[in-house]
């Protein structure tokens, strides 16, 4: 009996021994969704209401949603209607957009801002290069046009 008691004490002692663990961590960074992970198409109402929020920085009202839904549902080629609605949003003085002066001063930052705001991801290096190159070739075009292209793109229709 005494032997068993000693054995139990030893086992308990061993089992309670602290084990030093090696923990590996990385610095916390924002992980952005890549476009490849977007597989679900936004519903018509989602697309309209999310775009409204993205442009105005506030939720769409029920009245406004109904107004836009009526137009959206009344024409078969949705891109035709989306182009018009988006153009109307972006030309509204209440639209929350970076300034063209900011784009000129720091195109990288503005392009990144628009990508993160609308696509919930950072642009790839090639995308960044292409957009900047496009802006250099079209000095008369600015934030309004970049935002229009992003908001009417295929990727924006998915989440």
């Amino acid at each position: 009996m005494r032997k068993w008691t000693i054995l139990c004490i030893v086992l308990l002692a061993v089992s309670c021994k602290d084990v030093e663990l090696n923990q590996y961590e990385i610095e916390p960074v924002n992980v952005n969704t890549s476009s490849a992970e977007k597989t679900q198409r936004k519903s018509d109402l989602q697309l309209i209401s999310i775009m409204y929020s993205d442009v105005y920085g506030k939720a769409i009202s029920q009245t406004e949603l109904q107004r836009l839904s009526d137009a959206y549902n009344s024409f078969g080629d949705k891109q035709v209607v989306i182009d018009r609605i988006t153009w109307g949003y972006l030309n509204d003085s209440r639209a929350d957009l970076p300034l063209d002066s900011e784009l000129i001063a720091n195109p990288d930052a503005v392009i990144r801002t628009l990508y993160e705001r609308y696509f919930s991801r950072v642009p790839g290096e090639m995308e960044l290069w292409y957009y900047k190159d496009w802006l250099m070739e079209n000095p008369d075009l600015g934030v309004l046009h970049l935002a229009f292209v992003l908001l009417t793109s295929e990727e924006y229709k998915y989440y």
Partner: protein
Amino acid sequence: MNRREFIRKSAIGSLGIAAAPYILPSGRLFAATGARKVNHVVFCLFAGGVRNWESVQKAEGNLMPNILSGNEAISNDIAGSMSGLPSSPLSAPMQTMGTLFKEFRFSSGPTGHYNGHTTAITGQHTNTSLNLRANPEWPTIFELYRKHNSPSQAATNAWWVSHSNNLYPLLNYSSHPSYGPQYGANQIAPTQLFSGAALNALGSNYALDPDVAEELERLRHFTDAQFDVSFNEAAGLENTVEGRDQIQAFINKMVSEASSGQHNNPWSIPSGMNGDMYNMFYAEKVIEEFKPELLVVNMFGVDVAHTNFTEYCNNLRRADWAVAHLWNTIQNTPGMANDTLLIVAPEIGRNANPNTISDANGRFALDHTTNDAVSREIFCLMMGPSGVVQAGQSINQVAGESIDIVPTIADALGFLPDTNGILPGRVLQEAYV
């Protein structure tokens, strides 16, 4: 001639001989298998449920004097409740200029509006399993046209002008695996799109400088190329860039006109235009702008018969007048005049027995819920160029049914043989010269 030159000329000559049979007088390289009777078809669904008793059988008098010949007096109580209409847009009733099938049939399937529309637009019978929230199972006439017509035509050549943006836009294209949105028509519900709140949402100033538009398109093309999605995953049909430009310009014009009041009773109807008339008005605008090879437009006002028989009769007269206006517009549109087949038919009839709701004249209202024989009796009018469609012909015996309309359209546009037997109906040959 050396050997090399001989071989080259022989090859060109052989190619020419081989290709010659496929080059049409019109300059088209590839012909649809069948010859065309006309180059444009307009199909007007005189819908909402019209009973033959009140239409071609004139039980209440001739309520459709623009379509039907005859001066039968309208019942006194109904006549006293009629709203005024301008004189006919035409010099003679349409019946005298085309072929009227007086005993046409919606032969199978529930006598509901959506079933009736689906049958008329797909050429297939339906049953109670028809899903009202999904695109039809069988290809629509728009898809058949856009897939099988040769050469294939842009979506701006096919239009579906629906009276509402609820449910009926689904008839734009089917869920059939061999067809789908890439062959759909440009669906438009103009009475919703160009009125009220939606009108404001469209904005009137969507006009991009062509150079800017080209640059935006270039950037969009690049952006979309980074996000690969196949067409079938996308919702809705797509137009070409040129097609979209034309459509945007058309919408700009409509919005501008509607906003400035030009669409307030443009036909000067004394009692004002109802929804049917407005839908036909906008169908005419589409015709004038796009001169489509295929256009389907529907009406729906007669469905007021569920609660008001007298107003049902009144709306029959309005619809009749609107059809005459449509034909007049077609015949005055260069490119479509004398080259258009017009088919007019209700989608379903109405019950033989009334319900219990009476109107101010003590007339009882009519549903279309029993699938009885009377609710399957409809009519069909076919109009077309002289030398193509028989003028002044009235077919009084039972002949033709609504599944025959799609093959008749396919035959008229010359692509019926390419539909590979998918259509159960027949061509309404009786109407042709």
